[in-house]
């Protein structure tokens, strides 16, 4: 491939990504995402205000609480639905507002279009979800005063925060690719999103072969502090973190390949949508 062509593709992909980023962040589309991230933030804020005095002395308690909240609520609900809203609308939003044809009337390989939309949506998701995760993490340590801050800034605290951010970043990659594809296939991508959420929630009960088809199974293996699952812990066996990371990236790549294949066959028949 000539370098001129490669340069053109990069320029086109970045133009699509920038456009998608602006559409995702500076439009009404961001409102449900902000409402979603406001939930763990509010929870952390309320916890900081009303944590019993006895528990304010126990930093380990907050670390465990955050791990629990992150695994069971932030990751499975907030990040999941935020990605659903942002990525599913990358194509579906333009189909609904009947403006997708402008992208299809450009001298643009459909793979470049998919790549650009994915990257733009990913940056939008990261811009909202990564700071929200970091602030929630800090808020969970806030009731402990100076000790809490020291904990956040310590090597352990910083590595925990980095791991949580990496999990969110990876979750955005994988869920994003899935919802981008869903937006190409379904008129209402929220229906498959809800079905997939059911699958993700049921993961601990699934046999090992089916667990492998769940994103949360891999993401959980990357958590710095495993959540307390009670008796369900017996049913879960963590995956090697490297395998989990590469597995998620491989799944992302596979989903994007499927999205490109679908985009190449895309026709403009708004009336049917």
């Amino acid at each position: 491939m000539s370098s001129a062509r490669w340069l053109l593709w990069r320029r086109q992909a970045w133009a699509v990504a920038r456009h998608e980023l602006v559409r995702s962040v500076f439009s009404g589309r961001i409102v449900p995402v902000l409402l979603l991230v406001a939930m763990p933030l509010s929870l952390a804020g309320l916890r900081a205000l009303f944590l019993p005095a006895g528990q304010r002395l126990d930093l380990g308690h907050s670390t465990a609480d955050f791990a629990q909240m992150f695994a069971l609520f932030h990751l499975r609900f907030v990040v999941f639905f935020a990605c659903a809203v942002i990525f599913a609308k990358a194509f579906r939003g333009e189909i609904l507002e009947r403006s997708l044809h402008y992208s299809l009337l450009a001298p643009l390989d459909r793979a470049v279009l998919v790549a650009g939309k994915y990257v733009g949506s990913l940056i939008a998701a990261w811009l909202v979800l990564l700071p929200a995760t970091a602030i929630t993490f800090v808020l969970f340590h806030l009731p402990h005063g100076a000790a809490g801050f020291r904990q956040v800034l310590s090597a352990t605290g910083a590595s925990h925060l980095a791991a949580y951010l990496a999990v969110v970043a990876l979750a955005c990659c994988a869920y994003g690719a899935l919802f981008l594809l869903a937006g190409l296939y379904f008129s209402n991508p929220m229906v498959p999103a809800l079905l997939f959420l059911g699958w993700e929630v049921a993961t601990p009960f699934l046999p090992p072969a089916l667990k492998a088809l769940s994103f949360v199974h891999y993401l959980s293996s990357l958590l710095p502090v495993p959540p307390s699952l009670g008796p369900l812990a017996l049913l879960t066996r963590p995956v090697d973190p490297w395998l989990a990371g590469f597995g998620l990236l491989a799944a992302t790549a596979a989903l994007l390949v499927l999205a490109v294949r679908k985009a190449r066959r895309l026709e403009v028949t708004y009336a049917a949508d």
Partner: protein
Amino acid sequence: MTLDAITLRDVSKFYGEVLGVNRITLDLKPGLTGLVGPNGSGKSTLMHLLTGLLRPTRGEISVLGVNPGDPERLFRIVGYCTQYDSFPSGATGLSFLRHALALHGVPAGEADRRCFELLQQVGLADAARRRIAGYSKGMRQRIKLAHALSHAPRVLVLDEPLNGLDPMGRAEMIRLFKELAAEGRFVIVSSHILHEVDAICDAVVMVHGGSVVAEGQIRAVRGEITSQPIQVLVRCDRPRAIAAAALALDHVVEAKLLDDGASVLVRTRDADAFYASLTGIVIASGTAVESVLPADESVDAVYGYLIGQPGVPT
């Protein structure tokens, strides 16, 4: 596939079991071509097929040697102004065109210069920074046209481009289309308003029920409809004398005096023979003739004859 024509070979498109267009074979040449037919006749489907927004169920399409399934090459040479009156939310005229040029890989500085040229060309320079959502219908039509023209394509496909324009705007756009066609570009214009096409197009493609019912220069198409006598309107000072003499000709089937008292409408099976005889009639009767005009060589009339509903084609 020829590199200097737009060709469709046996092209059909079905939406499930619903027919879009059926077995269309066409060769389009440079110049202004009108795609005419009533709403729902298949014009937009045909235009979508030409630009790859739809894929044919059957058949082959080539646009100057390029397959419409290859957007990277196709949209270097094709600009399409669709019928959709919708735009990316929040876009201004300027940002809309800037994004289109960015997708063409045009660097930002050059894109801005080109945007203002285009906005000037379609008369929207003053509204460049306003949101398209606040534009009038005519302004939205113009910005779509600027979008289609942004990369100076050789093939311009325009779906109902005059919709919503005021008479002045229509005249400006028609002049622009004619200029583009005169430069050797392919300008394909669809319309369900047939007299509009009459006024601007060199050739027409008439579509009805998903099929092409006729194509070519309108006069030639009219000449081939032998089942319908050709109508000639003669305006003169002695219409009765012309009518009487015309009725004596064996190819004239009717000569009708019109209410204005200064015109006669002649229906003949052989227009050329009538025109040849008319000179002699005029001299012999000493009539002063103001004008001799074909009365049914319009797209409107021809379309009506072809679909069997004379007078109500639209």
